[in-house]
């Protein structure tokens, strides 16, 4: 593969250029990427700000959830204490788990990606800065409102995995559970928005020459992480929707007495929940691999193996979800498959651990702050991994399930696999964003307290679990041998908390955030591009990458980059811009014009949060007003985008010219839409799985679906919808009017087919409240209605752009993306109409 795009790689030899760049170019860059002032900080979209906001908020949630953990440990320090009443304890442990998993762990690693990736890839910013801003504000506002529920006694109390029937209306009649379902469902949407940004960012905005085999391992980790989010999170979004619908409208998805099945929730939850562990672990492992190499002063051993191990972890993690369900009575052979996969997933994790140990062994490791935390992480994570292999064995799991042994295991895995690497990352990368590095002297105390505290807190829990202490109990009786391990655990937890407190003190003393105003620099001697001198626009020029550690291999690189002797030493169009490169070989393809700061992503996030929170407290009018305002804000934010500029091609350095506007499969917008459609497809696929699952497990409640013949007219309409959508793209060259009309016809055809489908099901006499079958059949229709409504909105949006003369010919991204969505909507509708009539036909 000599070239992926027709780009001549010998052109790279023109760099570094020898000419002196004019001073004004740098001033232009500073002006275009200027610092916000006052209220503008709310509307900033640059990754330097959003990344810090994101990380800071995630760390705040870590501290708050940590305090909840300490409250639990205080309550359990001795038998029969009454520090927390039982009901409050239930809320506290639910919030501790939920906040740590959903509001700290995933957002923290996503935040690290937003902050570090553009610098590491030498891009000016991630490709959809406004989407990043929206994802952050949605998460921050939604998360804080969700957390506030504990102060008014409305926090969820059903455990972080919210199993029905405990969380059904019958056993959880208040709105506590609704806070979880709507709050978490909403926050997951923000995680998916971030994942789309990261996938497109890693694959399309790498510095020229940074082929896949030269990509920093952290970028690989973030790529796998984001793909896993796209595959896993739709399952929990569907699950939360179904459970909320069951609670609000009495549709019995999980009610075994009416043809539903509570195990369906467990499948939907854990199809997300177990990959979630690796979703958290992989980016942290990516950070570890970067830091280990620097700490050891040695190139990472087994780069290719680590990349493969990460991808393999991603794959296998989707085959282990049911190991959380070994005690539910699944058939033995099914159990065996999940047991085997659960053991297999330890192989790629082991490859990474051996690679880190080998790198440290052949290098000269320094026992500085990041070094201590990575070594501590290896010890803790390996311990957690070993108990993980133990619980992968079914007979052992039957004994240990829902005991404190599991609590110990999961804390070893998550603290060793994510928290310690994150602290290593804090120490390692804070000099990149702060004028001062953190204190090495205090760091040794922080590490000592955290490492000792962690082990003192969680090691005795193995013993308590094996002695029979169940998890989620607010107290225990004396005389069962549980007093000592619990007291020791409590002492350890406070020691761990003291370590974190000391870290906060260090942050307060030394962390001086100053995006664009200088930083402490490369204090640990890292070899990757984030250590190039940078400002708000990232590096002065974008280097050609020829190795994995360019700063180690070319000591002059930083100076040449700073003098503007590589790609894009100026703003070629006077706007914010970055180079979009090809996904495999990172060959320059076009110049992306990036949107600047805007109040609309912020407004959209506030109103989206308002919509979900108002639904939770049953303020329906306010919810709908918020929802409409959120849609208007999104449309307003999009209105300013997708505008071709007058300069069609520009020189991006050394007389290499690229276009400024590209449409079709090579555009970054097309990629983002495809990923979004994968998300929607996964939600739909999980809904079909739900239908098949209930049909298989509750055949007694199944009745014949409407006849297949009734689907023929729908299929014809959906085929017409696809035809119109495809035609819209091809006729744009001749007439924007007919192109937009074709989109509207397509959306109308899909809506008409949906109407026929609904009439067919309601004519069959099946009611959504009657049985699990009815509930899922109508849920499929509801999903299709959502897709059809969005498709219609997109077609109308294109029509409005057409009226204003904003539809460029012969190709236009807005038309292309609407076409893709319409084709998907029709395909989903046709599949749903067919499959829902085929499942359980014989029943």
């Amino acid at each position: 593969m000599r070239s992926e795009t027709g780009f001549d790689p010998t052109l790279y030899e023109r760099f570094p250029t020898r000419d002196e760049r004019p001073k004004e170019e740098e001033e232009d860059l500073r002006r275009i990427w200027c610092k916000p002032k006052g209220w503008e900080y709310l509307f900033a979209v640059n990754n330097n700000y959003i990344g810090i906001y994101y990380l800071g908020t995630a760390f705040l949630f870590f501290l708050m959830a940590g305090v909840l953990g300490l409250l639990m440990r205080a309550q359990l320090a001795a038998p029969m204490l009454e520090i927390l009443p039982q009901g409050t304890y239930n809320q506290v442990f639910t919030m501790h788990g939920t906040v740590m998993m959903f509001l700290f762990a995933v957002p923290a690693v996503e935040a690290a990606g937003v902050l570090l990736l553009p610098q590491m890839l030498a891009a000016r910013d991630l490709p959809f800065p406004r989407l990043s801003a929206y994802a952050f504000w949605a998460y921050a506002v939604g998360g804080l409102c969700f957390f506030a529920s504990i102060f008014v006694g409305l926090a969820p109390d059903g455990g972080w995995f919210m199993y029905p029937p405990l969380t059904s209306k019958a056993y959880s009649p208040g709105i506590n559970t609704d806070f979880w379902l709507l709050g978490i469902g909403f926050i997951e949407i923000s995680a998916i928005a971030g994942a789309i940004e990261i996938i497109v960012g890693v694959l399309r905005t790498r510095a020229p020459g940074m082929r896949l085999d030269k990509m920093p391992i952290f970028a690989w980790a973030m790529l796998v992480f984001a793909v896993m989010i796209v595959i896993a999170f739709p399952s929990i979004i569907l699950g939360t929707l179904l459970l909320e619908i069951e609670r609000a409208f009495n549709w019995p998805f999980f009610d075994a007495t009416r043809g539903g099945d509570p195990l369906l929730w467990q499948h939907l939850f854990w199809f997300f929940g177990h990959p979630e562990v690796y979703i958290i672990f992989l980016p942290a492992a990516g950070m570890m691999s970067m830091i280990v190499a620097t700490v050891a002063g040695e190139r990472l051993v087994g780069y290719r193996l680590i990349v493969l191990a990460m991808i393999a972890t991603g794959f296998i993690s989707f085959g282990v979800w049911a190991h959380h369900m070994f005690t539910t009575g699944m058939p033995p052979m099914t159990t065996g498959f999940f047991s085997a996969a659960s053991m297999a997933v330890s192989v790629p994790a082991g490859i990474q651990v051996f690679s880190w140990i080998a790198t440290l062994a052949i290098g000269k490791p320094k026992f500085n702050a990041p070094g201590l935390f990575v070594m501590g992480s290896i010890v803790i994570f390996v311990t957690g991994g070993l108990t993980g292999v133990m619980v992968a064995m079914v007979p052992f799991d039957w004994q240990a399930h829902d005991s404190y042994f599991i609590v110990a295991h999961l804390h070893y895995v998550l603290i060793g696999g994510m928290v310690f690497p994150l602290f290593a990352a804090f120490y390692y990368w804070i000099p990149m964003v702060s004028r001062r590095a953190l204190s090495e002297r205090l760091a040794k105390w922080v590490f000592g307290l955290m490492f000792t505290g962690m082990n003192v807190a969680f090691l005795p829990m193995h013993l308590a679990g094996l002695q029979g202490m169940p998890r989620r109990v607010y107290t225990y009786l004396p005389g069962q041998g549980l007093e000592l391990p619990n007291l020791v655990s409590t002492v350890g937890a406070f020691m761990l908390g003291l370590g974190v407190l000391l870290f906060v003190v260090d942050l307060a003393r030394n962390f001086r955030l100053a995006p664009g105003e200088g930083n402490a620099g490369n204090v640990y001697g890292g070899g990757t591009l984030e250590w190039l001198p940078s400002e708000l626009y990232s590096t002065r020029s974008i280097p050609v990458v020829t190795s994995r550690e360019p700063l180690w291999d070319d000591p002059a690189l930083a100076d040449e980059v700073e003098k503007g002797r590589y790609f894009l030493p100026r703003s070629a169009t006077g706007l914010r811009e970055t180079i979009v490169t090809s996904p495999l070989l990172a060959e320059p393809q076009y110049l992306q014009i990036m949107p600047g700061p805007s109040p609309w992503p912020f407004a959209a996030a506030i109103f989206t949060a308002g919509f979900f929170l108002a639904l939770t407290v049953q303020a329906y009018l306010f919810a709908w007003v918020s929802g409409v305002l959120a849609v208007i804000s999104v449309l307003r934010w999009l209105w300013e985008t997708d505008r071709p500029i007058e300069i069609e091609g520009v020189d991006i350095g050394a007389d290499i010219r690229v276009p400024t506007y590209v449409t079709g499969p090579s555009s970054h917008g097309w990629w983002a839409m495809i990923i979004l459609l994968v998300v929607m497809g996964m939600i739909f696929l999980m809904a079909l799985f739900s239908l098949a699952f209930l049909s298989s497990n509750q055949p007694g409640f199944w009745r014949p679906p409407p006849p297949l013949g009734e689907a023929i007219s729908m299929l014809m309409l959906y085929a017409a919808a696809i035809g119109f959508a495809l035609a819209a793209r091809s006729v744009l060259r001749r007439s924007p009017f007919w192109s937009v009309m074709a989109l509207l016809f397509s959306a109308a055809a899909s809506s008409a087919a949906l109407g026929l489908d609904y009439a067919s099901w309601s004519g069959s006499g099946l009611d959504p409240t009657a049985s699990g079958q009815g509930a899922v059949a109508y849920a499929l229709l509801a999903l299709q209605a959502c897709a059809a409504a969005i498709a219609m909105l997109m077609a109308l949006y294109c029509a409005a752009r057409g009226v204003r003369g904003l539809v460029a010919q012969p190709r236009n991204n807005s038309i292309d993306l609407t076409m893709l969505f319409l084709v998907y909507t029709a395909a989903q509708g046709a599949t749903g109409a067919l499959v829902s009539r085929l499942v359980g036909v014989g029943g």
Partner: protein
Amino acid sequence: MKSWLIIMGGLILWAVHFFLLYLLAEFGGSGTGVRLVASLCTLVLLGAAAWMFLAVSRETPGDPFARWRRRAAMLALAFGGLGIAFQYLPVLLIDR
């Protein structure tokens, strides 16, 4: 897309095999017919992994990226093949 399929071929085959086995057991039970179909699937997918391994190993890469991709693909196919065989063990070992 071709490069991604080459690099991840072994893992994709593992995933196809795992989900086929799961769906067979979840919706078909554990009778002799299901075990035969599972065995057949395993053989076909192991064969596919072996065929892909041979095809990739015969490639003559002309540049460093193609060399990297080839070695990564061979490792993934080896790992995937072993994974498929390991994942099949419950069909042989569990008699209920």
